[in-house]
């Protein structure tokens, strides 16, 4: 993924060519071979593909669930979906890039299902200090991850997804639009609303 600034303002700008080159490492011959053999039903080839990318996918899915069992299940879901969609892969973009899109869809589906069941953790169960988060004081990556996850979990799936894509995954508006299938203006509006909603939620919970 691109290492640009996570804010929407920065994300709004187009990607730098150098970054794009490093991120868009093209599909290797080995991967092409794995895909082609997987399409013919060769499970060993697909197993190689899973082994190659499972940690990258696991890192992404950790943003969707902090429950280890659910997390592992989500990683599995992504690869099952990848297998089913392999025939539609056009070899025009890096395989991981394509897999990440599928992972976002799988994660979003999980959030929607979870939202229907209303399983949410209250932010009051987590200790946090917003001034600390923005200061230069070191906060462990795990703590920051847990806090960000808990904050975004307060939001409905659509809002949560857009903020996750823009801040956590550092997507530009263009990329977020591509992943979600929304227009760029809808992405901007959704992100604006989501931030507003989150700010209100934090203020409400901060004063209780």
């Amino acid at each position, binding site marked *: 993924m691109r290492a640009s600034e996570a804010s929407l303002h920065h994300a709004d700008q187009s990607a730098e060519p150098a970054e794009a080159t490093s991120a868009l490492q093209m599909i290797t011959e080995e991967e092409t071979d794995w895909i082609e053999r997987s399409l013919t039903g060769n499970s060993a080839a697909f197993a190689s593909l*899973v082994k190659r990318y499972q*940690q990258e996918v696991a890192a992404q899915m950790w943003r969707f669930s902090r429950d280890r069992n659910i997390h*592992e299940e989500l*990683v599995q879901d992504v690869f099952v979906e990848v297998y089913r969609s392999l025939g539609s892969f056009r070899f025009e973009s890096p395989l991981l890039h394509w897999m990440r899109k599928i992972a976002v869809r799988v994660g979003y589906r999980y959030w929607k299902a979870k939202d229907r069941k209303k399983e949410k953790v209250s932010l009051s169960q987590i200790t946090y200090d917003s001034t600390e*988060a923005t200061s230069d004081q070191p906060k462990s990556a795990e703590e920051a991850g847990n806090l*960000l996850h808990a904050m975004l979990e307060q939001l409905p799936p659509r809002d949560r997804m857009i903020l996750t894509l823009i801040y956590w995954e550092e997507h530009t508006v263009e990329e977020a639009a591509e992943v979600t299938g929304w227009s760029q203006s809808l992405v901007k509006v959704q992100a604006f609303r989501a931030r507003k909603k989150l700010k209100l939620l*934090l203020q409400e919970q*901060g004063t209780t």
Partner: protein
Amino acid sequence: MNTNTPQYQPDVDLDQLLTGLARRARGETAPKVDVTAAVLHRLETEEEVEIFSFSDRVWWYSTAGSLVAAGIAMMIGYQSWFELTDPAFEMLQAVQVALR
């Protein structure tokens, strides 16, 4: 100070807060997973289920279809088409009259 109470400062820029947290969170390590065997097992199982449900569906449809076809054949054997449809036509006419 109660450390269990969230301490969101309204004056803190949310964009800055999210950017800062996300930057740090990106350094976290996700749990290691090895889903290879589980994924292959799921794919195999789902394939079997699909084959089973397809054959299952075919069996039910063919049975139901045969029964319906047999029923129609029996009715046609005993009554003419006019005899079959006439009571229904009469009933419709009665409804029409009642509505008027």
